[in-house]
């Protein structure tokens, strides 16, 4: 008995190995092909090192006097992220409930909302920013709208999936009390998804801060404008200061958001 089981296990082991080799070589072939297509070239990277060093040399030392000029842009960056995230939170709560199978009023609504959310998610903040700069003019408001729409797509999709994953038990219990549809959602569903939603919203704010630092590239406010301006004017010492400020800002935001999320979950 044991002998035959051992034999079977040995056979299964060979099968596992064959399968792993097949998949592995397949993946390697695909990767190699794409590498030649997009021109991955380590030699070019090595040849480029002196140029990079030259570039960094021109940036060093950062022009710290430029810091004072960046103060307003830094504050603006944070403000864009805050408002973009707040609008996204407000929009995504109803959208998530309409776009979750178990809370949607109709299956057609569900599909339409999911389509909308996928569209919002697939468009990058910078692309949205280009559109809104054209629509509402240069400045931070365009940036706020850009971040709000993209973040809504992400946040609402995530929240809808959380809603679909809730424990059915409390929902059934609420239905059994004679509660109406909305009451069942408010008491049976919402409390179950609040922690994950808040945690993800905080994470989204962190992502929005990073996005807001580059929106200025297309004229939608924040630090990105100084970044592109000083680069175009070859004021590399000041560009370095911008990068430094962005780094510190993202670092602080990341640290803060991680702490908040750890407390919630």
């Amino acid at each position, binding site marked *: 008995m044991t002998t035959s089981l051992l034999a079977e296990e040995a056979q299964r082991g060979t099968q596992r190995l064959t399968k792993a080799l097949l998949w592995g070589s397949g993946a390697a072939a695909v990767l190699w092909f794409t590498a030649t297509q997009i021109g991955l070239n380590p030699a070019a990277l090595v040849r480029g090192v002196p140029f990079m060093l030259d570039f960094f040399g021109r940036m060093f030392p950062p022009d710290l006097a430029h810091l004072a000029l960046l103060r307003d842009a830094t504050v603006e960056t944070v403000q864009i992220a805050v408002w973009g995230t707040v609008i996204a939170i407000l929009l995504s709560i109803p959208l998530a409930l309409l776009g979750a199978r178990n809370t949607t009023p109709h299956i057609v609504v569900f599909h339409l909302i999911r389509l909308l959310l996928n569209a919002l998610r697939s468009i990058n903040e910078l692309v949205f920013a280009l559109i809104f700069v054209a629509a509402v003019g240069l400045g931070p408001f365009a940036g706020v709208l850009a971040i709000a729409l993209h973040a809504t797509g992400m946040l609402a999709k995530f929240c809808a999936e959380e809603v679909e994953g809730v424990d059915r*038990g*409390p929902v*059934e*219990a*609420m*239905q*059994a*009390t*004679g*509660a*109406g549809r*909305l*009451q069942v959602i*408010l*008491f*049976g569903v919402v*409390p*179950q998804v*609040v*922690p994950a939603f808040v945690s993800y919203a905080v994470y989204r704010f962190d992502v929005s801060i990073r996005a807001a630092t580059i929106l200025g590239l297309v004229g939608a406010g924040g630090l990105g404008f100084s970044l592109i301006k000083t680069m175009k004017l070859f004021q590399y010492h000041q560009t370095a200061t911008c990068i430094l400020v962005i780094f510190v800002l993202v670092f602080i935001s990341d640290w803060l958001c991680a702490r908040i999320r750890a407390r919630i979950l």
Partner: protein
Amino acid sequence: MVLEIKGLSKTYPGAAQPALSDVSISVPAGQFLVILGPSGAGKSSLMRCINRLVEPSSGEVVFQKTRITKADLRAVRRQFGMVFQQFNLVKRLSVLTNVLTGRLGYRSVLRSLFYSFPESDKRIAFECLARVNMEHKAFQRADTLSGGEQQRVAIARALAQEPKVILADEPVASLDPKIARQVLGYLRQVAKELGITVLCNLHQVDYAREFGERIVGMSRGSVVFDGAAGDLNEDVLRKIYYDNVTAG
């Protein structure tokens, strides 16, 4: 009769066997009725067909001389308190708020939007908690309680509906024997005090004997026994528990 179940059948879509076939039971007011049977006998389906959490395929349920229909489901459901095997409390809400959800059937959606309840509801909730000796934990979160305590809170939630009937679906299946007896004791006591009719699904014979004023035995969706605890002999138990095991 407070409740008359007449020829109730239910076949779930895609199922080969009906979950309920032609079940008829009449329940007088104030009775503690135990529905006994193995897992899959149709006990849960029966309860859910009574308060229309599940729509029966055929047959009818008459509650206080009125046929229960899909119209005005709210008014009907709040007359039936329900207690579940997994307690089904909303874990992140306080014990008090959980009991207050028993009042949702009486309150407007607008007010619920703010998670607010009137003073009179809070009074009812505290009284219900006191009946199961849980008022000292009113402000704790529901998930800080033990299983037995959670089920007592769930009983309080059902009582807050001021129901005529309590449907208890395997209320002690997740509890150890000592706590199970205690919880069933509370259920029997409050039902007696308030004159509430109880339908209690159980799969353990000894609890059924101990707590059931009357026992209905179910097997494979049908009623195979209906009588007093004293009449629950070996023959009957074989019919309930073993006749459904197909040969082999």
